């Protein structure tokens, strides 16, 4: 083993000294404070201050542990799952306060009052390019979750993280990630890997049907996450059928199958946004690399990958498939430390994987903290409200 390899192995396996960890995490401590306060300084409401403090300590403890131990997914998943749960605890009460229920009406649609969600992105792009028309009943700039603001977030995520968005930004992903971790061993072990092409078919289908109908067909017919956000009030048989479909998909793909397979089945078998985001893995600078010399072909990475992004072919090629969400689970679990984060097009000997890991962790974690931090704060604030006044909704 050469000196270079030895030093890389040392960086990958040993935990850092506390002062090293502190210095590395210091910029995150400062930036996360700036992002969580919105740059507006501290508020005066004591409950909001406590919620901010809890969120700040929580997110930075996770980051410090990530930097100190070198484990990515082990700690990322804690924040990612918390983020998804807090998203639900934040979104639904806000909706009920604004509208009185989780239902939206035809009036909300024609007034453009539907919050934009990143899942719609692949469906709106072709009409936007051809006709400058956004086929979604939201607001371009004003209000909550405006289309312009969300498109910029999607662009930023795509440039910096590619499909890493699905493990570091998507506020739905943590739900099935959470359910997929509840059982120790999978009940359903043999899943035909061809199923992982299904989201691409769904993507093609919803893009074409959205163009034909000028409405986001995935949102109208399939999106399982309407179960935890908002859905049209059942006023007709058609809407009833749509409601049964999305509720069934939520129970099946977000709860039951992740429990049985320990995989993110909605992301792997249905999500058109995930399929679309896979293509952005071509433009972001990071990739998951497999050192074929170190690899013992134990296939742990294939078994643990939540999105079927590792297979025999990817092991032979020395990198993860296009659908990789850069969750870091394979890196954490590889017994030979043969898997690492790398910068595309550079030699594995150029720089250390510990250094590249930090270059990736900073933007990825910042994205997660900024996108999710506000939601976590609001959810904590609501829990504190519940504890102090007995009310969850104001």
């Amino acid at each position: 083993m050469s000196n270079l390899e030895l030093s890389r192995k040392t960086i990958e396996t040993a935990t850092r000294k506390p002062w090293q960890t502190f210095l590395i995490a210091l910029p995150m401590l400062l930036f996360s404070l700036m992002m969580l306060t919105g740059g507006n300084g501290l508020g005066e409401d004591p409950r909001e201050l406590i919620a901010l403090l809890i969120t700040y300590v929580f997110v930075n403890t996770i980051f410090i542990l990530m930097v100190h131990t070198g484990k990515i997914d082990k700690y990322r998943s804690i924040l990612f799952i918390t983020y998804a749960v807090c998203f639900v605890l934040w979104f639904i009460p806000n909706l009920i306060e604004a509208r009185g229920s989780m239902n939206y009406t035809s009036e909300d649609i024609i007034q453009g009052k539907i919050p934009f969600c990143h899942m719609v992105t692949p469906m709106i792009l072709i009409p936007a390019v051809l006709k400058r028309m956004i086929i979604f009943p939201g607001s371009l700039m004003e209000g909550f979750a405006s289309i312009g603001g969300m498109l910029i977030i999607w662009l930023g995520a795509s440039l910096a993280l590619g499909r890493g968005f699905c493990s570091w930004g998507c506020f739905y992903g943590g739900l099935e990630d959470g359910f997929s971790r509840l059982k120790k061993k999978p009940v359903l072990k043999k899943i035909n890997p061809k199923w992982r092409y299904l989201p691409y078919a769904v993507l093609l289908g919803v893009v074409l049907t959205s163009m034909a109908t000028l409405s986001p067909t995935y949102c109208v017919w399939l999106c399982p996450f309407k179960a935890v956000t908002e859905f049209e009030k059942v006023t007709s048989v058609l809407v009833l059928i749509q409601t049964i479909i999305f509720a069934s998909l939520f129970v099946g793909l977000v709860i039951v199958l992740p429990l049985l397979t320990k995989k993110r089945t909605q992301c792997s078998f249905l999500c058109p946004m995930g399929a679309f985001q896979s293509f952005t893995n071509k433009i972001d600078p990071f990739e998951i690399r497999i050192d074929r010399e170190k690899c013992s072909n134990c296939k742990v990475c294939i078994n643990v990958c939540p999105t079927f992004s590792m297979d025999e072919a990817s092991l032979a090629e020395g990198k993860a498939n296009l659908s990789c969400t850069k969750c870091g689970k394979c890196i954490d679990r590889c017994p030979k430390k043969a898997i690492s984060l790398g910068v595309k097009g550079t030699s594995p000997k150029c720089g250390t994987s510990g250094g590249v890991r930090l270059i990736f962790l900073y933007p990825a974690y910042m994205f997660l903290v900024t996108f999710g931090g506000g939601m976590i704060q609001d959810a904590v604030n609501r829990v504190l409200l519940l504890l102090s006044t007995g009310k969850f909704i104001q």
Partner: protein
Amino acid sequence: MKYIGSILRYLWALLAFPIVLATFIGNGYWAEKLIAITGLEISPWDTGGEIVQRIDQGHYLILLHRPVFDGIIWERKNGFVQVDWKATGEVLPAIINDEIDYDCDGTKDFQIRLDTEKNKADLIALSPDVTGLERVYKLGNGRAVRVLLKNKRK
């Protein structure tokens, strides 16, 4: 050359962090620029299309939208025209009866009798292009309807 390529790729990787910061810190600014540069607009199938006529009826205003037949490549065979009623005072009259010339050709195309208390409307088509009526929408203290149309040009 390979060395320069590697440096450029590392620079691109280092840029990921400022990109994420700029995404969130300058979100409003970038979003405004994106909308201004691309000229994006919400689909008229959702908004009802641009308002082309305002008719003052004393107690209320009629806002007539342009007919919507927009398609991705060609216009569609069927569409609609949206008519809004807005109260100039606090509430709309209980019963509204209006005749509308949606294509501004000087001939009335349909007549609507709107019951603002029951949120129901009756349509009398005065032109063969008028095919029906969607439900009544309650928009604050105003109301809107979408009258279904056949595209004359198809």
